């Protein structure tokens, strides 16, 4: 099983704290680091990383040696596809071919579209056409495009190092987005905020769409929120306020991914069905359950979130790395082989 690190911010982390954590992930043997695109200071909580994921990615490319650098995801309608193609290719060149580009249609809320002067009704067209323009910009020496973007005989530079082009991952949930991703044969980054049963449903539905387009099997990275502490009780004590805060927070795209009626978003249910949470033993059991259900080939973990203090996030990540990492890495990606559950605390 590959293990990735979703580098989001938390209450007290600055950019350089995140960079330290990413260096740690590289040295500890994590396979990937993922950066999301978020704009504007939220007035509710925490830090908002990253408003410029490519700028951060270029820095990361230069301070790490082997970790893959994923963008999960660039919000395509907000930027010109040529800028996205150029920025992504620059990161790919600087990193020696370590870029994974996630793409999404919409961000956290309508303010994004309004601030960048994009009509919400146009985001579908922009998203789909932007993807096609980016692939052409990366792979064709010269090209033209006639659509929302009107491009005539241009040659975009630099070209990415990875051939034919860097892997592109779909991040999304709507039926139209899934249909588009399946048509283009994109692996999907399965969202952290989904319940396990929704993950399975999404994976199966998307798998059917992919089959319908004669696309082969592919590994869909699975994102999960994690918190590891010495005991289950300590994990609750460390994070209860934060998670309750999330439950009371309205109007965020994360809630859309939950697909739960308002009254069913409860603390116990989130811990049980969304988070990987508790002592190393408990976390291992939950990951095994997840793996048994989903055959997870690539687990991308969010250690930092919401209003948790940065030092707690780092400690949770260190515990994860110390007690679960080696055993999880040894699980076969394709075989569905069951992990041997044997964790001993110091």
């Amino acid at each position, binding site marked *: 099983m590959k293990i990735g690190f979703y580098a989001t911010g938390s209450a007290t982390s*600055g*950019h*350089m704290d995140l*960079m330290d954590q990413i260096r740690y992930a590289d040295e500890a043997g994590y396979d990937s680091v993922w950066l999301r695109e978020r*704009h*504007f*200071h939220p*007035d509710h909580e925490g830090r*908002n990383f*990253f*408003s*410029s994921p*490519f*700028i*951060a*990615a*270029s*820095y*990361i*490319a*230069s*301070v790490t040696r082997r970790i893959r650098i994923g963008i999960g995801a660039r919000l395509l309608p*907000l*930027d*010109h596809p*040529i*800028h996205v193609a*150029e*920025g992504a290719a*620059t*990161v790919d*060149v*600087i990193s020696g071919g370590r870029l994974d580009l996630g793409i999404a249609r919409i961000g956290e809320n309508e*303010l994004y579209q*309004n*601030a*960048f*002067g994009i009509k919400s009704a146009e985001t579908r067209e922009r998203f789909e056409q932007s993807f096609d323009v980016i692939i052409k910009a990366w792979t064709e020496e010269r090209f033209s495009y006639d659509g929302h973007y*009107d*491009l*005539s005989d*241009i*040659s*975009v*530079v*630099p070209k990415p190092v990875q051939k034919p082009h860097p892997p592109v991952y779909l991040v999304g949930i709507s039926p139209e987005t899934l249909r588009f991703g399946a048509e283009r044969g994109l692996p999907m980054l399965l969202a952290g905020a989904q319940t396990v049963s929704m993950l399975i449903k999404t994976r199966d539905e998307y798998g059917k769409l992919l089959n319908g387009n004669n696309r082969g099997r592919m590994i869909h990275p699975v994102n999960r929120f994690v918190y590891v502490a010495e005991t289950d009780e300590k994990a609750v004590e460390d994070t209860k306020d934060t998670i309750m805060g999330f439950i009371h927070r309205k109007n965020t795209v994360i809630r859309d991914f939950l697909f739960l009626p308002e009254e069913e978003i409860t603390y116990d249910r989130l811990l049980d069905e969304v988070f990987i949470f508790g002592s190393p033993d408990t976390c291992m059991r939950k990951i095994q359950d997840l793996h048994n259900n989903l055959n997870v080939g690539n687990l991308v973990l969010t250690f930092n979130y919401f209003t948790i203090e940065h030092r707690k996030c780092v400690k949770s990540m260190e515990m994860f790395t110390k007690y679960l990492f080696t055993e999880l890495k040894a699980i076969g990606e394709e075989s569905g082989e069951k992990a041997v559950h044997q964790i001993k605390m110091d």
Partner: protein
Amino acid sequence: MKFSLFIMGTRDGSYHDILDQMVYAEELGFNAVVMGERHFRHGDLLFSSPLSLASALAARTERIRIGTAARVLSLDHPIHIAEDAATLDILSGGRLDFGVTRASLDEESHTAFHAPIDETRHRFRESIEIIVRAWTEEKFSYNGRFYRIPEVSVYPKPLQKPYPPISIVAVSDETLAFSAENGYSAITGAIRSPLELEQTAKFYYDNLIEINNGLDAELIINRFIYVADTDEVAGREMEQPFMEFIKYRAPDLKAALIRKYGGEEYLSFDRLRNDFCLFGSPETVTSGISELSGKIGIDHLLCTMNFVTQSHSLCINSTELFVREVLPNFQMSNKAIQL
């Protein structure tokens, strides 16, 4: 005097060679490494994502300042530009010198990014205002002709306070006046003779409004520089690459030169070299810089020592010779962070 290094790439240097050269510039003691922005087939002349490259440089260096000359404001949304630059300022530990320009050198970029050239002057002014407000105001909204922004709080804020130094590429007198009257630094002068620079400097400093923001505005002069053992060798090694550069790779310069000299047939290497280039032995280049610093009072030289039409190794040799034989003749006031 400050010496910054403008990097436009070389004929055969990869991004990694260029990054190595930028890291080397810190070791050599330059004030700043400065990068340009250029899109499409001209991209190997400059960089299509200069702030991404700058971020890689930030990770690899500790002291040298990192500049752009320049981000083309009309080609991107000002919020993206403000976010990118602020992120870079944080990652570099406050080393960003933010150079901006109104328009790209080629019409092609303006067509592709749907930003017609004739709109750029107005877009530029709105954009620069939005960027400064995004950097300095907790919340703001904006209602302009090109940009309408509801109340937002742009994140992150830059590390440098009140904000990173802004310089404006001023080719026209109008832009030079705008820079001076708004208290911004200006970058100018690649094809201006020392005599013209004297007038330019007088005009800029006479019109410079002091904005009480702690940022010292200055006039930054761009010079094409190539150092070899003798004047004769420098001429031999630069004639073909420089003329190829002017004729085929720098359409804006070529057009300006044709206007200035009255026709392409008057653009001879010897004449251009004599009028505004510093191509020669260490003694010749030293005396050229002395003329700029002494009589004209230029305090910040942006040294263009890479040419996309010249081999990477020759550009490096020239830069090393410049640092070893020319720079020691000047009192340096580079702003690189002292460790």
